[in-house]
């Protein structure tokens, strides 16, 4: 017999976990994309040395497990005097992680912009920053928008791992509830559904923003 009703008394626990996950997701999505955008621009247009540095960062993150990155930041950094709360450590780890993946994705968008577009901006007298923000970004992001959306969702789902350093996120809530009432099946099923809803919501938000940013596609 299943006993979903045994979960009701833990509604607050689930809600507060959900809130933490949402909060961290929104924050790290914004910061991660911002970081990825900067790094992608450097990778694509920067000087050789800074290009290399970005490449090292990206490869380092993409070729190591997220949980190790998280543990390194939370348990490792205090060794050099940098002590962070679990929440701070998670925020940083998630941002750095999304930043690395989105760097590669956004760079693909940047390199899809024909050279002629940049030259056209140049001969019209625009400086590089103007060219980047006015001419390059919109079509570049449009190209990779679905991939970027997926990556943000992957990172959101991957954030479940932060319960390991006792951030009280959604997964932490599930663990807590099932350890109290031993309803593992029900707890994790509900949690899975909540993640599913979050993923759908995040995709929806991205789609709405995309509709605005790339409105010119609709008009045509």
């Amino acid at each position, binding site marked *: 017999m299943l006993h979903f009703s045994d979960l009701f008394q833990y509604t607050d626990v689930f809600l507060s976990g959900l809130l933490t996950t949402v909060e961290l997701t929104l924050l790290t999505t914004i910061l991660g994309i911002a970081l990825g955008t900067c790094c992608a621009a450097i990778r694509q247009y920067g000087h050789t040395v800074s290009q290399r540095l970005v490449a090292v960062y990206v490869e380092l993150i993409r070729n190591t497990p997220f949980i190790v990155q998280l543990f390194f930041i939370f348990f490792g950094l205090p060794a050099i005097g940098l002590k962070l709360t679990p929440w701070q450590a998670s925020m940083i780890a998630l941002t750095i992680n999304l930043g690395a993946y989105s760097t590669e994705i956004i760079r693909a968008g940047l390199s899809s912009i024909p050279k002629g577009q940049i*030259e056209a901006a*140049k*001969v*019209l*007298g625009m400086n590089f920053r*103007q060219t980047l923000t006015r*001419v390059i970004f919109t*079509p570049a992001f449009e190209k990779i928008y679905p991939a970027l959306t997926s990556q943000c969702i992957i990172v959101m789902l991957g954030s479940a791992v932060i319960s390991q350093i006792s951030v009280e996120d959604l997964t932490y809530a599930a663990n807590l509830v099932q350890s109290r009432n031993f309803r593992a099946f029900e707890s994790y099923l509900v949690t899975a559904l909540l993640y599913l809803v979050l993923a759908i919501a995040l995709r929806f938000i991205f789609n709405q923003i995309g509709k605005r940013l790339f409105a010119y596609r609709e008009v*045509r």
Partner: protein
Amino acid sequence: MSLVNLHQVHKYYGDNHVLKGIDLDIQAGEVVSIIGKSGSGKSTLLRCINGLEEYQQGGITLDGKEVTTEDIQVRCLALSVGMIFQNFNLFPHMTVGENIMLAPTIVLKKSKAEAAAVAKAMLEKVGLAEKFDSYPEKLSGGQQQRVAIARALAMSPKVLLCDEITSALDPELVGEVLKVLEQLAQEGMTLILVTHEMNFARDVGNRVVFMHQGKVWEEGDSKQLLSSPQTDELKQFIGAVL
């Protein structure tokens, strides 16, 4: 004083010696057609004039000021040199009006209203006033190229560089773009164009420059040069294109 002056300009791509000592002097109001075989250095020459490509030797001046590829200088140069490309290079995510208004607002710091007025006037000039709110992809190639011309004109350049601007167009659309150029020529705009349109070069242009193997092989008055070429290379070239 000449508007554009090139003195012994040499340009290399690695070991490839592309421009081999170009001398050229262009006065304000002249319409100069650059012709020559593929690979003879026509585009490179044009792109050196507005600092898109650097050159290794010699000197180029525009309105008396030296041309370099220094970023700030290129932007300064852009204020007096317009360029139109073979494949238009309109910004796809902006309407025609926004395409034209962008540089006047963010580079020349004109107000929105002022820039819009200029954009409308320029669109009028190229016969596309009704396309202000259309997106480039909705336009034919010929219309896109005319918008590109309007966009360049909105910066009120002293000279317009055109690199084979009708080559990507369907034959029936070439005429409308050439007509705009002809009108500009009549208004006294200085035009330097790389072109394969010999009739245009002869009838509208003042001067033809024939490039061959990275050199100005032969140049002179357009009608005279095209009707009685002196060098075998030019005779051959004219024979091949006509």
